[in-house]
């Protein structure tokens, strides 16, 4: 059995891969590409904050029903003359949307008070920094 230098062995292997059957190479490439794309998409999903707002996860069934359904995107007229009627139409839709917004949580309700997160002492002796 003769000794083959590592470089020659690598060259021989590379030649075998290049001139040999292409199917194993294609399969390996496809699997590696799939792994890479999966890693990128999961990282993207996690890092850009989408995961925090993804209510399709298990345990969010009730919340899913509370989410406003996405309307079909309305196309607005940008070239017609501006008259009182146009202003009135604009304000009608604007006010409807403002009213809709007032129905959503405003994050100003002190929802993290000790009482709300079950940390209120029975005797009421809370000497927290609040």
């Amino acid at each position, binding site marked *: 059995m003769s000794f083959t230098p590592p470089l020659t062995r690598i060259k021989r292997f590379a030649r075998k891969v290049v001139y040999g059957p292409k199917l194993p190479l294609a399969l390996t490439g496809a699997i590696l590409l799939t792994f890479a794309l999966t890693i990128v998409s999961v990282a993207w999903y996690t890092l850009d904050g989408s995961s925090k707002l993804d209510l399709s996860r298990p345990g969010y069934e009730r919340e899913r029903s509370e989410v406003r359904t996405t309307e079909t995107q309305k196309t607005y007229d940008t070239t017609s003359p501006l008259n009182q009627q146009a202003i009135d139409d604009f304000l009608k839709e604007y006010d409807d949307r403002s009213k809709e917004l007032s129905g959503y949580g405003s994050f100003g309700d002190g929802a993290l008070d000790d009482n709300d997160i079950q940390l209120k002492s029975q005797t009421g002796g809370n000497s927290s920094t*609040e």
Partner: protein
Amino acid sequence: MIDRMLTRIMLSFVAVFLVAFSLAGVAMAQSDTLSDEMLDTIRARCSNSQFALQQIEKRDAVSRINRGRAYDQMLRQLSAFNSRFAYNKISSPDLIQYTTELQDAINSFRSSYDKYDTDIANALKVNCKEKPSEYYAVIVKAREDRNTVGAQVSKIEELIGKYREAIVKYGEGLK
């Protein structure tokens, strides 16, 4: 060259230590101000508290999503109306200014919500039976960040009102 590298490495170490000490300081300050009774309450109600926190997180996610979508729709409407002003050769710098401010406020709302949500996620990770003061410190931070989100919502509402007032004025001018 080597001196510069060494200086950089030393400065990095100093920075890491400073950050670590300041974080530890915050945690200690929190534990200093919490009474033994409060610490006992946190330990005793750890699971209940974290469950309540989870419910708040879910409720807030719904508000965040609904608000985000409504804001996007509103911005599209405003941009289109600003374009209509421009097409009709009516100068409306105030409308453009309010729209830009609104866009910025909406972006801040989104980023501050992300921060707040990260706080809640961190609070849910803390073992509050073993580390009640650390848990409470994260809760305090979450409260502050939630207030920031609330402040952004108020700012957006204020800008929505200002834009409306401006439009009404333009309407009066058209009469």
